[in-house]
């Protein structure tokens, strides 16, 4: 019982807030429910195939190749590859998390995974086209260039920190996945 409570503390907390909102601000609660429902519909369609893709990646991606292309010694080529992979038109950021985990299991470097995730979030091509239209070319180009620099710095820093202080809990819960 205690375990279940611990595992579901976040959803339970959110549910409590919803109930309170329904009592004190029914208008906002109705809007919130509608938004949640819309996102639910989106995720119900998108997430199952994403997780199956992740499963297929875990099973099929050759570890030695991923290590070579995106690993610690992949250098500039690995960084550029991560950037390009991230900018391809795909889905929302939460789609990229399982894929990133697979890449990490397969030996991609932390720096490259951070670049991949960052590019996915901030530098996606369809998103950039909308940005150019509404914010202007200068704004979009400047943000693009500065973001790339930021991602490289963030990635290198995170690699240094996480190499020295690995996330043992995460490694433990992902045991076995990497040796397939």
């Amino acid at each position: 019982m205690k375990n279940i409570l611990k595992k579901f503390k976040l959803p339970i907390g959110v549910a409590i807030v919803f109930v309170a909102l329904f009592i004190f601000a029914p208008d906002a609660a109705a809007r919130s429910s509608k938004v949640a429902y819309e996102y639910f519909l989106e995720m119900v369609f998108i997430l199952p195939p994403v997780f199956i893709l992740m499963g297929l990646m875990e099973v099929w991606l050759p570890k030695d190749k991923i290590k070579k292309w995106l690993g610690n010694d992949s250098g500039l080529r690995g960084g550029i590859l991560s950037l390009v992979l991230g900018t391809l038109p795909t889905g929302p950021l939460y789609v990229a998390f399982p894929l990133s985990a697979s890449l990490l299991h397969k030996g991609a470097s932390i720096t490259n995974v951070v670049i991949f995730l960052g590019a996915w979030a901030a530098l996606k091509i369809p998103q950039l086209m909308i940005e150019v239209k509404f914010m202007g070319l200068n704004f979009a180009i400047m943000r693009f260039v500065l973001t790339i620099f930021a991602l490289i710095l963030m990635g290198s820093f995170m690699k240094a920190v996480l190499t020295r202080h690995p996330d043992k809990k995460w490694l433990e819960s992902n045991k076995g996945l990497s040796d397939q």
Partner: protein
Amino acid sequence: MTTIIIIYALLALALVFSLFKSKEKTQKAFKVAGKALLKTAPSLVAMLGIVGLILGLLTPEKIASLIGAEAGFLATVTAAVIGSVTLIPSLVAFPLAGSLLRSGATVMTISAFITTLVMVGVITAPMEMKILGMRFTLLRNGLGIIAALLIAFLMGILL
């Protein structure tokens, strides 16, 4: 819609390849997928609720009134906070940001909003933690906020 088409097309392609190569490994892939999905489910439910709550309370009009009216450092920080805690599709976010810019918000404030919106995901953090670990998530989002503010600052000066 295009997202769904692309992902299902990718999946179909990968599945055909996988089944052709080995039925056993395909089964194993499904097992890995099911386990991961089950593990992530509670944080997904929470994420849905939080998205709903935040977007239900922070409507585009509300955001406009919070960061459009005032200028200066405080508006930039407010914009960064709003950008971090919201998850707005770019088709809504960029028109909103553009109109705020034209109606008098500073470039720095709008850049802070956009850069945190795309780089920092407080809403998706529970899910990110489940999948990529607590440390990774805290570092990536924490550094993302700092980077976003620096980028906003530079863009404010340069543009």
